[in-house]
């Protein structure tokens, strides 16, 4: 593998890891506050559709991004209502959101655009274009570092940079602020938070809301930056891979970054080399596709350190009387 190929694979890794990373951090906020969310997939899908649809109608991608975030937030509120206010089962609510989004997006797309559940192709201002970072042109002549800067770091859409900046921001918010401490506490011991006079319900709603916003950006990235429009079921299981990455990362922001980059790399390698010939035997492409899930199972089984979810995760909080 020569240097240029390596760069191209890594470049592809960044593109593929970005939606995973955003969805993974979304899940991190929600689950750290004690609300399991398997509806990441559905929220991304709804956001992908509404961002593409509104961007197609208005011709302005920022309006699209706003619409995508709003759609994802709306589903988050449904999840919050079901699992926080009405203390329903969080997994069932998540599954319901996935189904709702899968059906609703195609139905509305058909009604609005009559293109077989697609949105029209976005053009010009309707898409997030690549951003060339300052100095990328000038530095590209520098050996090794130049191409890395010009090819790998520069030239992505703004949402990629937002996604990567979200990682330190999440870490700071969760581990260096009072809000973060309370949010983590609400996922471990909500009764303690309640005793301290802080509202468990409000905190959980805020967490679920942040989750909605991040899923919204992830969906908009898929439909308006990577692609130029919505196609039915276009998330293709990325919400679930993000969940796997979250477990793999043991619910920590920096690990989430590494996990998503690893899963992105696996995908990029699988796409670039269909079957990898290791000399002695050939690794089939299916194995590469399945590897994220296999790694997650290995982690869950406790072979490589233990993944312990937030203690109060999955349980609705009932005030003691």
């Amino acid at each position: 593998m020569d240097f240029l190929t390596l760069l191209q694979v890594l470049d592809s890794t960044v593109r593929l890891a970005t939606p995973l990373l955003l969805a993974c951090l979304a899940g991190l906020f929600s689950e750290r506050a004690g609300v399991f969310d398997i509806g990441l997939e559905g929220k991304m899908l709804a956001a992908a559709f509404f961002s593409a649809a509104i961007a197609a109608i208005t011709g302005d991608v920022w309006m699209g991004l706003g619409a995508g975030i709003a759609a994802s937030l709306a589903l988050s509120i449904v999840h919050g209502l079901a699992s926080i206010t009405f203390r329903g089962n969080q997994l069932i609510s998540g599954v319901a959101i996935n189904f709702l989004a899968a059906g609703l997006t195609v139905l509305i797309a058909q009604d609005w655009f009559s293109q077989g559940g697609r949105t029209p192709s976005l053009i010009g201002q309707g898409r997030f274009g690549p951003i060339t970072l300052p100095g990328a042109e000038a530095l590209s002549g520098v050996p090794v570092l130049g191409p890395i800067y010009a090819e790998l770091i520069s030239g992505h859409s703004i949402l990629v940079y937002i996604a990567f900046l979200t990682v330190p921001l999440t870490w700071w918010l969760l581990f260096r602020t009072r809000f973060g401490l309370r949010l983590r506490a609400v996922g471990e011991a909500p009764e303690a938070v309640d005793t301290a006079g802080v509202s468990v319900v409000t905190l959980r709603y805020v967490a679920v809301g942040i989750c909605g916003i991040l899923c919204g950006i992830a969906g908009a990235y898929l439909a308006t930056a990577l692609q130029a429009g919505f196609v039915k079921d276009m998330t293709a299981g990325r919400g679930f891979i993000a969940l796997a990455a979250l477990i793999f990362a043991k619910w920590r922001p920096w690990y989430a970054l590494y996990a998503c980059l690893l899963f992105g790399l696996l995908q990029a390698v699988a796409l670039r080399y269909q079957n990898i010939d290791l000399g002695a035997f050939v690794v089939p492409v299916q194995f590469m596709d399945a590897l994220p899930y296999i790694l997650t199972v290995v982690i869950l089984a406790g072979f490589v350190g233990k993944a312990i979810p937030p203690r109060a995760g999955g349980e609705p909080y009932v005030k003691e009387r």
Partner: protein
Amino acid sequence: MTLMTKLSGAVAALALTAGAVAAEPALIFDLGGKFDKSFNEAAFNGAKRWAEETGDSFREIELQSEAQREQALRRFAENGNNPIVMTGFAFGNVLAEVAPDYPETKFAIIDMVVDEPNVRSVVFNEHEGSYLVGMMAAMASESGTVGFIGGMDIPLIRKFACGYAQGVKAINPDANIVANMTGTTPAAWNDPVKGSELTKAQISQGADVVYAAAGGTGVGVLQTAADEGILSIGVDSNQNYLHPGQVLTSMMKRVDNAVYEAMTAGTDLETGINVMGIANGGVGYALDEHNAELVSAEMQAAVDAASAQIASGELQVHDYMSDDSCPALSF
């Protein structure tokens, strides 16, 4: 009470007359949906053409789930609809079970062979159409490397790839063909993001024409090809209009003709296997105002010559599904 009796009498009479005229044909769309801009929509267009020309009407249903296949088939058959046309290989097993129960009803299935006395199985020679677009790809390519992106890795899609590769090699025996499949699950039909990444990977390997036989994933392939300034080839229906001037051509599968013919034949529908190839206008390549500038006269002449040779049987394009192997491409 008397009013009630009268009413129910009227309803019964209505039901009877409805039964009497219900020999209208029925069309069942597969899960892709009626307006998928591709396969199912082509079927709908064929039925619409039939309805407009004859002034008759037809019944139709869009499936929402796997479980509805048998239900929809039986309902139309019980209702007396004849013939019943369905799109998609996925109906194969269900139809094999249902067809013997309704020996008086004629069924037509597209893209699958069901061996029952009252079933017409319409199959397309996709390898022949792919051969033609493969020739065009090889002539349009400047780098000598062309790409193929399939959807789910099934024999049918390999048939596309194999025909394409043979067409490419016919023009340029030294050409390099980069063939990738999107995945091995049905999700591979609807993953434009992966389609884009595969296209970028193929471009970096030198491909300057890519052929997408991948359903919704193909939307991403065509988009990325247009963004990156290379040519792409659409599939099933005419997709040239998606990116005018950047889609070289589309491999057309005339599902509309198949449906039109089945409905025109009506209850006299001829059963058995009906092969739609180049010879009878079943497959071909698309030429319209969106790609007129891309297709040179030389290209068109070469393709039309090959087309005539295939039609006359002079040129045989190898069918991957006949022996699960491909002379021009290894998977």
